[in-house]
């Protein structure tokens, strides 16, 4: 689902955030992306969501190379990826329903379908009944879960999350991570960037470790089924 081949990323200010990064995340697989602050985790996710393009190397997502994708194909490309941010990026002046519905609305889903799917997504994150509330009326944990509902509402094959538990207390954080694991259980590919080692151990999933923009541990070998195929 995600393939990085010798990817380097240099930002316009000259800062080299990634150097020769290669890894492969199979369809339906879930992995954590860990490393210290500044290691390049967010940059990896930005390259996946096509918020940035690689300076060198190729990033392939769901069979499409991002380097050469034309501008007019970017919206359709992004619709197959559910993105969750630490600061959740909700529209503060719109109720929960509108926020969650946005990916369906931009994709032109029929109104009935929108209604059904938004309720289903809110149900999955335990927020059914709060459709008409504004983000500011919710707790931080609830806001984060609205962001997750928005990421999954259109049933994308890939979900990426950047520090989704950064603002949550440990109990809530674990709950949110379990939510991601549940999506992965039904076949969604999940890539979560976090620096919380405790959570990573708790969930027992593959861990890709970045250090100063380079892959320190690909984590693939530790996966039982990968070991079995070698």
């Amino acid at each position: 689902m995600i393939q990085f081949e010798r990817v380097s990323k240099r930002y316009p200010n000259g800062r080299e955030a990634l150097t020769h990064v290669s890894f492969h995340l199979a369809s339906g697989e879930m992995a954590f992306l860990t490393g210290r602050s500044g290691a390049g985790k967010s940059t990896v996710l930005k390259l996946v969501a096509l918020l940035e393009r690689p300076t060198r190397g190729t990033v392939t997502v769901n069979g499409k190379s991002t380097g050469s994708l034309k501008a007019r194909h970017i919206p359709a490309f992004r619709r197959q990826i559910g993105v969750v941010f630490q600061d959740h990026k909700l529209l503060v002046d719109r109720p929960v329903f509108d926020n969650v519905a946005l990916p369906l609305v931009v994709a032109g889903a029929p109104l009935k379908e929108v209604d059904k799917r938004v309720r289903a997504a809110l149900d999955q994150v335990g927020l059914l009944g709060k459709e008409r509330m504004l983000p500011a009326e919710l707790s931080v944990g609830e806001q984060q879960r609205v962001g997750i509902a928005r990421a999954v509402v259109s049933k994308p094959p890939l979900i990426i999350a950047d520090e989704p538990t950064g603002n949550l207390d440990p109990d809530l954080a674990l709950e949110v991570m379990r939510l991601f694991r549940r999506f992965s259980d039904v076949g969604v590919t999940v890539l979560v960037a976090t620096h919380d080692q405790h959570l990573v151990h708790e969930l027992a999933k593959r861990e890709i470790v970045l250090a100063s923009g380079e892959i320190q541990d690909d984590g693939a070998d530790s996966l039982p089924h990968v070991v079995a195929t070698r």
Partner: protein
Amino acid sequence: MSLSVFGTRHVQALLGSFGRLARNPLATALTLLVIGLALALPAALDLFVSNAQVATGGFGQAVDMSVYLKTGVPLAQARQLAADARARPGIARATLIPAQEGLKEFRKYSGFGAALDALPSNPLPDVLHVVPRASASSAADLESLRRYFTAWPEVDVVQLDTQWVLRFNAILAVLRRLAVIAAALLGAGVLAVVGNTIRLEILNRRAEIEVTKLVGGSNAFVRRPFLYTGLLYGVGGAVLAWVILEAAVLILDPSVITLAQLYGSRFALQGPSRQVLGALFGGGMGLGWAGAWISAHRHLRSIEPRA
């Protein structure tokens, strides 16, 4: 995407744009006022020219001639002259206005009643008002007609209004062209006003645009509500311009009617015609849409989601 979904999305975008304008009534009203005035001005000029043409229709198209008889010509003889004139080919109408009647009219409309009473006798002559046929209104025809009347011993002066008509029509043509120039300049102004308003709106909604693009909203999707906002500004401005024109007509009409009566006409001001209204709404909507499109095209591109 099915047609109904397509339609629904447009209706949603339209309602959304409308809602946003309604939530900001003062700013919206000011913008609409500027657009309305810019549309109303050239339309008002055009309206003025059309009305001037209608008002002067009687002598603006067919030229006419006033044949002043010498004082002291008996009325019966004047009547005979009028009948002779009528018998001439090339003459559509020849109406005798006897001095008595001319005085009555003058007294009624001029406001010089008291001054007239002070005069020992009627100072006005009998006048023969002659309207040539349209087919016999060329400069040469009129000149030969003038010579025909001047040859009568009873005739004092023949006054031909050709020169005046030509000048008047030339003035109207200038005003019409002025209306076109004003429309072009003010149209560019509307484009700029709408464009700038939309630019500010885009900057205000930057966060929303970024998120929308992040979840896969296309440029067309993001642009749509702004185009509808521009369209609504255009429609609103046109409605306002219409109201301004009708109000102006309403306010001016009584004094214009009085003025027309002084000239012995039953003329009353005409409101904007269908064509003018069509131009007003078509122009307003087109300019609103175009201004919004240019602005959206320039500014939406640069807004890309950031992580």
